[in-house]
């Protein structure tokens, strides 16, 4: 009888290819996702050293960060540096023989949406990408995390990573969510509770009834922001919903291989009595629709609250909050529901999936956005866009006054032309509210797609429960 293991322990143990005397491990990587921004230097490194990609069949590339999302993007990319990065990925994918979804392919989209959609991401796998939001894939019970460019090169060359094991952390969300509360509110509320460094050194397993009740899309939203809580990765044990989502996907196993995979996947859960080094429990009923007010994802409050004061905090946070409020142009004591916004961005690897668009469209049905508001929906992939058109969601967005864009990372990090102007205030469904994140001087409030849609209608941060 072996000691009880966590889900993370099980996946870790199944992927150790070599252990050195000092405990450093070579962790085998099942899927390597690649995009255009963090990979050019890695491919260049391979060329310089005359190395090849060890497992091109496990390596998948798609351009997403730099690509324009306007409908005329077939004409090419205006910005020369952006164009060169995307062209470099085209060339590297071809030269090294890796799977590739070019800009012109309907399956193109944000790498963390394309991976699961195409069945590349499966339970029990190790998944890495030169992007911190790789944590998204943890929703499938895969060990998934971001890596730097040197590590991208290391995985390309060796299909392994040099790793030491992290500690285990359990985040349990008990009970049921109240109406108007979504996966985004869960993940933001957890970060609000634990802080942006609360998960440092840990891999988080999210569990509890409220997590089980989420769809796969919702679970991806929760795991996506594990990195914002400082964790190396976030995981959710796979269940029937996971298997159902994977079944029939282009790169998921079929026939007898499916049955064998399924039997293995059903062993992927934390055993009773498994040890967690840290446990956080939040009641689902206590979670409200939330927004961020500052420039760190931990600056989270229910929409019914008011802008805090620096004196509400301790230590280094006092100065940080003073700086945040000045940057955000907010005064302490102002009710959050009175904060007026200029722009609404619905999209990103956090909230650019079909369920997110359905939730936003549900609020917008038969309504118009506030006069003068700039509002855009950027679907997470070409397939999400096509499905939303088929379901009539695109018409709802267009009739409400939203722009209906092509797939990409877009205004989440504003590497393409979709940016905020200085002082512009945005209700965003993305994942980071850092200074300058959406454009120099831009002000970001993070929230769920339904909350962002509500803000588009009223012109200010709004409690979505008033519109449902």
């Amino acid at each position, binding site marked *: 009888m072996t000691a009880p293991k966590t889900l993370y322990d099980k996946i870790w143990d199944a992927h150790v290819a070599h252990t050195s005397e*000092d405990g450093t491990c070579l962790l085998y990587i099942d899927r390597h996702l690649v995009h255009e921004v963090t990979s050019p230097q890695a491919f260049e490194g391979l060329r310089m050293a005359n190395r090849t990609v060890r497992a091109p069949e496990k390596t998948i590339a798609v351009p997403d960060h730099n690509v324009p999302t306007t409908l005329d993007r077939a004409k090419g990319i205006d910005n020369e540096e952006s164009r060169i990065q995307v062209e470099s990925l085209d060339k590297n994918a071809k030269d090294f023989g890796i799977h590739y979804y070019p800009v012109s392919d309907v399956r193109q989209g944000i790498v963390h949406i394309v991976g699961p959609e195409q069945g590349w991401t499966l339970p029990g796998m190790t998944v890495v990408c030169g992007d911190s939001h790789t944590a998204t894939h943890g929703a499938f019970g895969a060990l998934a995390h971001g890596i730097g460019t040197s590590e991208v090169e290391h995985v390309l060359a060796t299909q392994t990573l040099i790793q030491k094991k992290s500690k285990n952390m359990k985040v349990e969300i008990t009970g049921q969510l109240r109406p108007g509360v979504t996966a985004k509110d869960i993940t933001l509320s957890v970060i609000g509770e634990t802080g942006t460094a609360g998960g440092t050194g840990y891999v988080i397993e999210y569990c509890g009834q409220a997590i089980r009740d989420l769809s796969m899309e919702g679970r991806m939203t929760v795991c996506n922001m594990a990195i914002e809580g400082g964790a190396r990765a976030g995981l959710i044990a796979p269940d029937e919903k996971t298997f159902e989502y994977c079944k029939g996907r282009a790169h998921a196993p079929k026939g007898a291989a499916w049955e064998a995979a399924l039997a293995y996947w059903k062993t992927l859960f934390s055993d009773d009595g498994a040890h967690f080094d840290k446990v956080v429990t939040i009641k689902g009923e206590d979670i409200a629709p939330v927004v961020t007010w500052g420039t*760190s994802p931990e600056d989270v409050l229910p929409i019914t609250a008011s802008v805090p004061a620096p004196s509400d905090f301790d230590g280094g946070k006092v100065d940080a909050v003073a700086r945040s409020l000045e940057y955000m142009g907010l005064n302490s004591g102002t009710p959050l529901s009175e904060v007026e916004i200029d722009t609404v961005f619905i999209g990103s690897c956090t909230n650019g999936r079909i369920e997110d668009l359905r939730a936003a469209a549900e609020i917008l049905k038969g309504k118009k956005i506030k006069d003068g508001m700039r509002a855009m929906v950027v679907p997470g992939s070409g397939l999400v866009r096509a499905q939303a058109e088929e379901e009539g969601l695109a018409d709802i967005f267009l009739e409400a006054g939203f722009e209906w864009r092509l797939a990409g990372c877009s205004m989440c990090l504003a590497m393409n032309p979709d940016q905020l102007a200085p002082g512009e205030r945005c209700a965003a469904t993305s994942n980071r509210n850092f200074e300058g994140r959406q454009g120099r001087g831009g002000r970001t409030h993070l929230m769920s797609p339904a909350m962002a849609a509500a803000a588009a209608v009223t012109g200010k941060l709004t409690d979505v429960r008033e519109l449902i």
Partner: protein
Amino acid sequence: MDKFEKLSGVAAPMPLINIDTDMIIPKVFLKTIKRSGLGVNLFDEMRYDDDRAEIPDFVLNKAQYRNAEILVAGDNFGCGSSREHAPWAIKDFGIRCIISTSFADIFYNNCFKNGVLPIILPQEQVDALMKDAEKGSNARIEIDLADQTVTSSDGDVYSFEVDAFKKHCLLNGLDDIGLTMEKVGSIDNYEAQLSSERPWV
């Protein structure tokens, strides 16, 4: 990779907590396909105004810190994205060591791949070194990786922890990929086992 053994240099104080990778190197500079030349854009939005003029109050624009080789920073330094452009920019500026109470995981790992040493110390020791750094260019802080010590300008010595493998690679300037290639037999064996146990991978 460049070796890191000992360093004696000016330390710049950045007490702000949660200094994120967008602050360290804004995304407009991620469009490069090279690793070099990013130092001029380190902390770009804090360092320059809209007309690209230096903001005099920013620490690295002050005469005494323009050649800083060490940063003493607030908690959770390097949080945010996985962009290795952050340590590339730091190194290119000339900074080889960052001292803080904690670092974000990916940033911490990325530093070691680039000859930059991130040092974690308890709050009160970081506070003391922050005060030391505030003295300007006359106060040099010394780092000894082999001994795992930081020595303040007043001679106070603080010990730090560092993973033995990471230390070994940094002291000797070793290339990770080369080291892993030596274990290729283990990877071959693992893949053979994988194809029988989990063929769908």
